[in-house]
């Protein structure tokens, strides 16, 4: 390279200006945080596993609402008796399992996306296709998603599924809290059809109070813990059960938001573009100095 020192400085100044501009722009980007403002009125569902009879009607209603071939509603109750532990998938956004498959007719638990208050999937999504809506729902946008499946890596509950066998427009499939229905003022399909009232839909704040009221009223019936109140920073779906659901139904998770330290690391590395720009300046300095030395060396 044969540029002289003045050129070098000139271009360097130009880079500085660009960097400054970038810095001015960056706070706008940083605002799209998964730890953004949460609406106080956001909704949730309280699942009372002691009430659930395992009829599977919620599975049927969910499929119907999401245009998945549901089959015969009468067939669902038998799915539970074989003791298999099913997972939500692209063919069933929610499933009901027996909690303890070794005990015939043990309590049942409905599984679906937990709609975390600080979702790891929202934080992870490379293009922001997954959003935490004001009403609490975590929704996925088919027009934005690129199918990288990083949300599946991130989710602590192992919920998002992917249509691996579709060559075109494979979807990330997960419960969307019936976002379209709730926007129209309807209940989520599962909560609407539940014949025994095992699913209570309401604001999350009220549901936490209700859950604690039930525990207080019936301390011998319930394990003294509302699963989802604090797990991974809180989830919209809350669970009551006779025994602890941790490690039988749900993995052992802390109370820190699911994105964990990843956002802090990411923002630390890019704090207002200072570290990259500083590194650039440092390297530029080294380059200039070593060049000067070389010139003085008589080359």
């Amino acid at each position, binding site marked *: *390279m044969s*540029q002289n020192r003045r*050129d070098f400085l000139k*271009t360097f100044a130009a880079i500085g200006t660009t960097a400054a501009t970038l810095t001015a722009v*960056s706070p706008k*980007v*940083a605002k*799209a*945080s*998964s730890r953004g403002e949460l609406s106080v009125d956001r909704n949730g569902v309280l699942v009372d596993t002691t009430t659930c009879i395992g009829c599977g009607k919620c599975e049927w209603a969910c499929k119907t609402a999401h245009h998945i071939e549901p089959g015969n509603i009468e067939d669902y109750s038998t799915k539970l008796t074989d003791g298999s532990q099913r997972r939500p998938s*692209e063919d069933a956004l929610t499933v009901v399992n027996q909690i303890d498959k070794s005990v015939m007719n043990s309590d049942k638990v409905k599984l679906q996306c937990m709609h975390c208050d600080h979702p*790891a999937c*929202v*934080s*992870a*999504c*490379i*293009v*922001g*296709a997954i959003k935490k809506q004001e009403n609490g729902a975590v929704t996925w946008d088919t027009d934005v*998603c*690129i*199918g*990288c*499946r990083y949300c*599946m*890596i*991130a989710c*602590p509950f*192992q919920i*998002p*599924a*992917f*249509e*691996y*066998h579709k*060559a075109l*427009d*494979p979807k990330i499939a997960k419960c969307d809290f019936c976002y379209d229905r709730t926007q129209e003022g309807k209940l989520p399909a599962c909560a609407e059809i539940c014949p025994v009232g095992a699913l209570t839909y309401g604001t999350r704040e009220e549901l936490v109070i209700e859950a604690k009221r039930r525990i207080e009223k019936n301390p011998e019936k319930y394990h003294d813990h509302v699963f989802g109140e604090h797990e991974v920073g809180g989830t919209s779906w809350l669970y009551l059960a006779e025994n602890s659901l941790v490690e039988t139904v749900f*993995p*052992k998770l802390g109370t820190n938001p*699911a994105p*964990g*330290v*990843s956002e802090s*690391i*990411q*923002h630390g*590395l890019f704090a207002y573009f200072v570290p*990259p720009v500083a*590194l*650039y300046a440092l*390297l530029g300095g*080294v*380059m200039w100095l*070593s*060049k000067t*030395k*070389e010139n003085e060396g008589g*080359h």
Partner: protein
Amino acid sequence: MEHAFKPEQITKKYFTPWVIVLAAIAINGLVFLAMRFFFGIGSVTNLNNQFPWGIWIAIDVGAGVALAAGGFTTAALGHIMHRDKYEAIIRPALLTAMLGYTFVAMGVFVDLGRWYYIWHPLVMWNGNSALFEVGICVMIYVSVLYIEFLPIVTERFIGRVNLPGLFKRFNLLVDGLLRKLERGLDKTMFIFIIAGVVLSCLHQSSLGTLMVIAGPKIHPLWQTPVLPLLFLLSAISVGFPMVIMESITASKSFGLKPETDVLSSLSKFVAPLLGIYLAAKIGDMFIRETFVYLYEFNTTTVLFAIELVVGVIIPLRMFLSEAVRNSVTGLYVASMLVIFGVVMNRFNNFITAYNPPYATEAYFPSIGEISVTIGFVALEILIYRLFVKIFPIISLPIRNFGTKAKYAIRGGLK
């Protein structure tokens, strides 16, 4: 400044039995790849809802990015620190980085469920996502690498533009444009060189941040908040071994004398760099007290031990020995071990360590996945071989007047 070496086009014939073998491997991979586009990712891979990422991400992307680190490490050494001695290895390293990153992009492309939306991150941003950072940085860095390669293209064609048939009349015009481009690049190249190093440091580390968000799904032997640092340090320490390995391989393949002199002095940097990486890794283990997991004996801990002992400690010891550094075989074996160690580390980070809470089976790559991965490697080598024949990449000793005369004419036209 007159060097005893000058980058020249390689004149050896392209096809050899090994080239045919590589071509067969590449074609096999491309056939499986075609299936993926017609029948979906699930038809070729063993990926499922439990294991969303396989070797296309772990090896093609994770290890691919690390192994292309020869580009920015040699650029830092040769261009930024102005160690002219290493000029001869910069071009081959640049070519490998350029091809390496192109294939990283291809790896991402084929792994994306909706590959036709690969441009989305350019306009749809999520600043919280480590993957977004990796994606954007890699895209910019690939462009920077192509720009860094342009001077080699202008050097190849200035004074030698020879368009076929009717286009002959544009020869002078194209030549003039190339000269303009060369002058412009010459003045601004330092911007791109520094940018290349900065971008590399950024995305090499962000690649480590990727699995941090998976939290408890990642085995504690690998899950640590300093993953970005470990990824960066290991990438820096594998840069020179990659260059050494390639240089020796290319020399053997083209029947040239290995540049033992340059490679030996380059290899002096490897042990300290590996040492820093090892210290960070072991230090982190002791701070988080994860060594307790090593009392267990299972596939995970065995793979961890292999990664650390065979991939870091043994080559570190080898690179400390002067006898090894001065022997071509020693350099080759030690470099291969470092490369193996980093590939192993990326594989472990993305696959071995990944334990979803409801896993019912283990992930093992399918024939299709393996075919595509090694097919890409074969294709990359084939393109490398083609490029060193077309462009002056590999430095040859200046022997005869013919070579000198060509450059004299070129200078005269200026």
